[in-house]
């Protein structure tokens, strides 16, 4: 009577995939009105468990109770009916559809025989106002920001009247502002009596919003703790099985000569919009320059211009003093640039190549990997095995397809490939996106190592923490220009936030953006 | 080891006194023995020979051009006395088969095998221009708009014989009449045939002579939907396609050719190494018997007159562009 109702109870859930037990006798429950965090390394089995709850997988063993009633979840339709909604790790949005269409899909309001689009739009606006989830109902998904996509995903569940919401790594792709907003939205939702299951690798978020945390490791529950009675270090230890350090250990930087010089570069995108506006920036050997900025202010265009993927219309890009402006990608790579791209599936890997073949994606045509245009498989294997070893890429062998590695390990493979090329300039874009804390620690160490070896490192991340911890200098990008360059040790999150939103500080107070 | 012996034995027997049943094979082109056309006419002649002469007949359909040679050789190996190849496309295959099976006899219809014909081949070809000339006569005399048309499948020598024979006929009886000559570029596109026919009729042509294979069926389909226009068919009597719109058809007597040579061989005669060229005189080409349905008697009489003149050699019908120019 006095107890709060248990809305979800999963008992003894076991799910096997060929060669792996993803969930091993997991029991897990969620109470009404709580935010329950689910924590675990990459591949621990979190998504699998939630997919079972959402009816996407059928468990091999175990039972599920919703609101105390035993149910058999045969499909998502069933889950929808029971008031379970899920925001997936990889967004499930139909790109060419509008926001409204995505939300109503599957339960469309109908007038005669056609969709009642007016009513639909009305309903979308209603819910979005009720929960403070601002969206443009008529926008096409492919035109909107990730943040809005996220809100659309949430609206999808709310539209269906879900009161149990599953968020699978909702913040991996969001900017700090968007993350804050999402946190507020979640709190708002639980205050309305809904229950939330939150999967995230970011302990800070767990500490900030959750009520309880369940930690899983290798498919088994390690334990459930009350958030108020734990701390990040304890959680990390629970999930990895050993202590994890969050402090990034680094010495003072010793910047040397200029490696990358960007000089008044201007560029336009396909829609003829000016995306880089007379931008200038320098990166020296032996330093990490972080770029902070709200998504869409020209970060990716800047990187693409440096790496030769995008033509610039004016200005110069110099590498070690040599002109690299509008040179081909290969020329630039060969001049000593490495690039850890933002989207590992889209642009970092050939998923249907083996992990070994992916390791030589930029060097296959050179000795010793090929001779007289014939690939030397032995050398490729040897090399791949060395990287797999050195960078701790967890894979059965170098012949395994990249596709079947977990995200974190795919990321490590890319980092191994790019770092081992021994570049003069290492560009790292979102290098730790979606990977677990253990892997994050590992990746951070590698980046610092590069700096200390005298490489120039250009880091782009939407996670301010990461930028502030790793960088020596931070350049804030705003509307295609560098609004300011600040010393990482001296700046604050607040100052950066102010600059990112278009504010000016005294150092770079002259320019653009005010009008 | 055994391959040579058998073939030799099998073929010397035509002159033997105690006569074995004659075995005649036929390799048809794609479409087979019931193509309502060329191949069918040939096969029906063989069947007729089977009934009338008590010989044994069999056919095989070469779907691809490449199938013809093995099919021909297969018959020869199986001891067939004579094997027919149907159509000029089979010419080269027939020569090769004849060369590799020198003791077997072959015949081909609709091909003269330019150059020397091997001694174990007999060929039959048609003077299509002569038949087409008569179609030109009918069209030239029947046209009201003084505009007639020719629709060919693909432009190459065989079809050009149709074209120039027809044009010569039109010009002879009605020099004022204009002939609109068009080629679809395919023999298997009735849809395009229909488009062409519609366009030609729209442009004022009131009679179309088609030499376009199944593309030409589109001409009949189009004519059926119009009033006051006519079609002339080819190869066989095509009036069944549009009884009320068909003036005539240029019939080629493939059956006559096949039957004649088969019958001769049954009597022990084989004119190897020669070409039998069948024209109006030999009744190898001519008017469809249904022509009297839509063509007035006086015009048919006129056609008969020209037929006589061609037979007597008074008119030499052109086959090619240059001959046609001289004909003028």
């Amino acid at each position: 009577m006095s107890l709060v109702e248990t809305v979800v109870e999963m008992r003894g859930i076991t799910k096997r995939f060929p060669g792996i037990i993803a969930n091993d006798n997991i029991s897990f429950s969620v109470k009404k009105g709580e935010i329950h965090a689910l924590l675990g390394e990459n591949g621990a089995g979190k998504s699998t468990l939630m997919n079972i709850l959402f009816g996407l997988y059928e468990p091999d063993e175990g039972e599920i109770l919703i609101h105390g009633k035993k149910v058999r979840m045969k499909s998502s339709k069933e889950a929808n009916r029971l008031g379970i909604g899920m925001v997936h790790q990889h967004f499930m949005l139909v790109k060419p559809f509008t926001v409204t269409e995505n939300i109503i899909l599957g339960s469309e309001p109908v007038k005669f025989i056609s969709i009642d689009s007016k009513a639909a739009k009305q309903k979308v606006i209603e819910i979005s106002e009720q929960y403070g989830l601002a969206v443009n109902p008529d926008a096409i998904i492919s035109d909107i920001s990730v943040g809005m996509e996220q809100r659309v995903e949430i609206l999808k569940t709310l539209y269906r009247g879900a009161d149990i919401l599953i968020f699978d790594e909702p913040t991996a792709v969001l900017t700090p502002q968007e993350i804050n907003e999402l946190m507020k939205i979640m709190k708002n939702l639980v205050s309305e009596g809904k229950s939330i299951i939150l999967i995230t690798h970011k302990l800070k978020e767990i500490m900030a919003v959750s009520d309880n945390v369940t930690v899983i490791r290798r498919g088994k529950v390690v334990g459930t703790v009350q958030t108020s009675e734990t701390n990040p270090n304890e959680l990390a230890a629970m999930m990895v099985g050993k202590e994890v350090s969050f402090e990034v250990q680094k010495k003072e930087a010793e910047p040397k000569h200029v490696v990358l010089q960007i000089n008044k570069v201007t560029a336009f995108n396909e829609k003829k919009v000016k995306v880089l506006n007379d931008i200038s920036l320098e990166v020296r050997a032996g330093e990490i320059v972080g770029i902070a900025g709200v998504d869409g202010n020209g970060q990716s265009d800047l990187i693409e211009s440096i790496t030769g993927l995008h033509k610039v219309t004016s200005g110069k890009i110099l590498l070690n003093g040599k002109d690299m402006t509008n040179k081909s990608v290969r020329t630039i790579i060969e001049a000593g640039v490495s690039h850890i791209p933002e989207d590992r599936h889209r642009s970092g890997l050939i998923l249907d190549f083996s992990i070994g073949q992916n390791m030589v994606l930029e060097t296959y045509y050179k000795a010793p990997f090929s001779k007289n245009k014939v690939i030397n498989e032995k050398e490729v294997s040897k090399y791949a095995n060395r990287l797999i070893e050195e960078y701790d890429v967890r894979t059965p062998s170098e012949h395994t397809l990249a596709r079947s590695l977990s995200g974190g390990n795919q990321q490590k493979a890319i980092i191994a490939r790019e770092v081992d090329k021994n570049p003069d300039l290492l560009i790292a874009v979102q290098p730790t996106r979606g990977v677990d804390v253990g892997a994050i620690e590992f990746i951070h160490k590698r980046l610092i190592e590069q700096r200390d070896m005298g490489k120039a490192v250009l880091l782009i991340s939407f996670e301010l923490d990461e930028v502030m911890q790793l960088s020596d200098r931070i350049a804030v990008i705003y509307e295609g220009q560098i609004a300011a360059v600040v010393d990482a040790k001296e700046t604050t999150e607040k100052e950066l936030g102010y600059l990112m939103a278009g504010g000016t500080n005294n150092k770079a107070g002259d320019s653009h953006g005010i009008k | 080891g055994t391959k040579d012996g058998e073939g030799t034995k099998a073929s010397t027997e035509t002159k033997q006194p105690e006569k074995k049943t004659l075995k005649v094979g036929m390799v048809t082109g794609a479409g087979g023995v019931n193509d309502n056309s060329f191949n069918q006419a040939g096969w029906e002649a063989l069947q007729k020979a089977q009934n009338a002469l008590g010989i044994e007949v069999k056919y095989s359909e070469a779907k691809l051009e490449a199938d013809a040679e093995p099919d021909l050789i297969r018959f020869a190996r199986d001891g067939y006395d004579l094997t027919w190849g149907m159509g000029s496309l089979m010419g080269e295959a027939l020569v090769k088969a004849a060369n590799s099976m020198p003791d077997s006899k072959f015949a081909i219809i609709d091909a003269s095998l330019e150059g020397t014909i091997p001694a174990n081949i007999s060929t039959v070809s048609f003077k299509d221009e002569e038949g087409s000339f008569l179609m030109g006569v009918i069209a030239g005399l029947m046209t009201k708009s003084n505009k007639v048309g020719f629709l060919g499948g693909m432009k190459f020598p065989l079809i050009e014989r149709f074209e120039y024979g027809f044009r010569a006929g039109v010009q002879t009886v009605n020099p004022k009449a204009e002939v609109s000559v068009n080629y679809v570029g395919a023999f298997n596109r009735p849809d395009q045939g229909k488009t062409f026919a519609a366009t030609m009729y729209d442009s004022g042509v009131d009679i179309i002579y088609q030499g376009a294979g199944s593309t030409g069926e589109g001409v009949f389909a189009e004519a059926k939907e119009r009033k006051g226009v006519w079609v002339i068919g080819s190869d066989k009597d095509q009036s069944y396609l549009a009884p009320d719109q068909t003036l005539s058809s240029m019939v080629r007597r493939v059956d006559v050719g096949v039957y004649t040579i088969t019958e001769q061989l049954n009597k022990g005669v084989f004119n190897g190494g020669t070409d039998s060229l069948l024209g109006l005189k030999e009744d190898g080409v001519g008017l469809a018997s249904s022509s009297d349905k839509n063509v007035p008697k006086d015009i048919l009489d006129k056609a008969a007159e020209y037929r006589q003149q061609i037979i007597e050699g008074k008119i030499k019908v052109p086959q090619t562009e240059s001959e046609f120019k001289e004909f003028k």
Partner: protein
Amino acid sequence: MDIPSILTTLVHNAVVYATPLIFAALGGVFSEKSGVTNIGLEGLMIVGGFSAAVTTIFCDDVLGFGSFSPWIGLAMGLLIGVLFSLQHAVVSITFKADQVISGVALNLLALGFSIYMMKKLFDGSSQTTTMHHPLNKLRIPYLSDIPYLGKAVFTAYPTSYIAILLTVLAAFILFKTPFGLRLRSVGEHPKAADTLGVNVNRMRYIAVLISGALAGLGGATISLSITNNFTQTTVSGQGFIAMAAMIFGRWNPIGALGAALFFGLAQALAAISQVLGLTKYVPADLLTMLPYIITIIAITGLVGRSEAPSALGKSYEKGQR
């Protein structure tokens, strides 16, 4: 010919020629919008054309239905199209076979079946007899009397009007109804649709069967209005041209209609340029080539990425990433 008559002839012929393509291309749109590649359109047109011809001849010659027969033929073309498309659905959706292979097999099966049946039914002949009652052109009262325009667009086979109506209907269904939204979602992001309770495979089945119906109609249209019989060459490649029309029309019903009409126009242009005597200056063969060359130029001019549905060609397996 004066200019207006030339235009009249062009438009009229373009519509006649385009009609079967419109049907089949619409079929392609349905199937591919749902994520199922359909290079079996050719085969579906073949069985459609064949069964329509056989049925019409049977109804007319044996049952004596007269001019009503082609309508039964049309219906049969549709039905048999659906039946054969079931093969594609079962193999590529249920058994998750490569959709291109299944389509290739469908083409072979359809051709083999039709000719085999034809030989059985028509005494070994590889063509049917000729219909006495094919579809006749419809002259819309009054409108067809308008000079030029009347002949260009208001005198046409009933199937042409049906094709245009179906195009509008298809556009409406695909873009305005819940069914259409779900069908398209399944072709773009089947997993998303699945999580929202849309039955992915069922939607795809329906879409493929619709494509069978429409391509079957397309084939039927050829034999009922253009050739008036059926032979193994009746369809010869139109299914592939329809596929091109679908892509050219960017997987949109209206676009497909436009592309089909464009092909028709190009074809009609090739014919009229010969008839008007252009052959005096240009070889006839070159004019015959014209439609294909125009198409390449046109589609190159219409620069832009093809808008193929993202999940096209991928079979959907629940629980796979």
